[in-house]
């Protein structure tokens, strides 16, 4: 197992595993937003704004994993 192979495998694993958590998290956020929207369609503005904000927080974790994967392939 030379270093090149391990680096590529590590990059793939990093991105793949790192996307599980944010994926589930964004799904849960969407569920909460849909529930809230169903109960109170008039509050669409604040609900959508806060949902987008929270999704960006969750997405940032996946982006960290992506950065590590990119660093593994191109820099390390």
């Amino acid at each position, binding site marked *: 197992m030379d270093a090149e192979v391990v680096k590529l495998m590590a990059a793939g694993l990093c991105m793949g595993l790192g996307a599980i958590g944010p994926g589930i998290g964004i799904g849960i956020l969407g569920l909460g937003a849909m529930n809230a929207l169903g109960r109170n369609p008039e509050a669409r503005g604040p609900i959508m*704004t806060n949902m987008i904000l929270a999704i960006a927080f969750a997405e940032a974790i996946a*982006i960290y994993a*992506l950065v590590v994967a990119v660093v593994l392939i191109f*820099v390390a």
Partner: protein
Amino acid sequence: MPKRGCLGFSVPVVVGVLLVFLVLFLVSLISGALGNSLFGDLGLPSWLSVPQPALKLPAEVVFHLLGFPITNSIITAWLSIIVLVGICYAVTHRLKLIPTRLQSMLEAALGWLLNFCQEVAGEKNGRRFFPVVATIFLFVITNAWLSLLPGFGSIFVTNTEGEAVHLLKGANTDINLPLALALISFIFVEYWGIRSLGGLRYLRKFVNVSQFFRSVGQLFRGRLRAGISGLFMGIIDIFVGFLEALSELVRIISFTFRLFGNMTAGEMLLLLAIFLIPWVLALPFYGLELLVGLVQALIFGGLTLVFATIAASAHEAEAA
């Protein structure tokens, strides 16, 4: 109402457009990398093939100015500045009461931004935070959308060392620009917090030793039980304050990597799509990139706003 064919155009026009699209799709399928692996080398002219995408993570230096290396992302950032300042100057140097089209577009954008700031931060604070937040938003979105124009990643120049480098590269994909914006956002959030609450009261959020010393005083005065429990609460308070200070600093890193990661991932995705099926596959990804640019600008400005609102509001810990 007379029938107008489909989608508002006459039927021959729609059929013609679909035919052109089909021809483009077939040509790019054969000449792109996907076709090369499916059909082998067919000996097509070289201008139909796309080179393999090579990602240069530290941006390449194009020339030196007064001793500073000027990279291609700095050139793009200057281009965004010129575009933004140019639009604003063209609108404001002759403001009319009945606005022209450009003036009403700019008024709509700035009005929406001011409304957004005031919704999140309240009337007075919204107006106070508006300049920095709106600048961050407009700069990020101009950088992101300009980098979708043709010319970014295809124009080559030879730099001072003689290598062929790209002339233009998306400014948000160089990690220095998100880092600079994150530092500015951090400095302004702390500044607004200190201005709103007074220096000592704001810093006391992070160095929260009041409960600790109060319980030491209780111990000395002989109230042992209240003293000991207060001591533990004081230690927890100090630890929580330290964690809050740490999270303020980690925000810089998280801002940087969120913007950098999204923009670089988008650029790589576009380069890969253009490499695989040249003319056609990139179309849905261009739409995605437009959306991602808008959302990331909104997130950067919006999070700065939210953190400033939290910092500037009176943050009393629960009474002991």
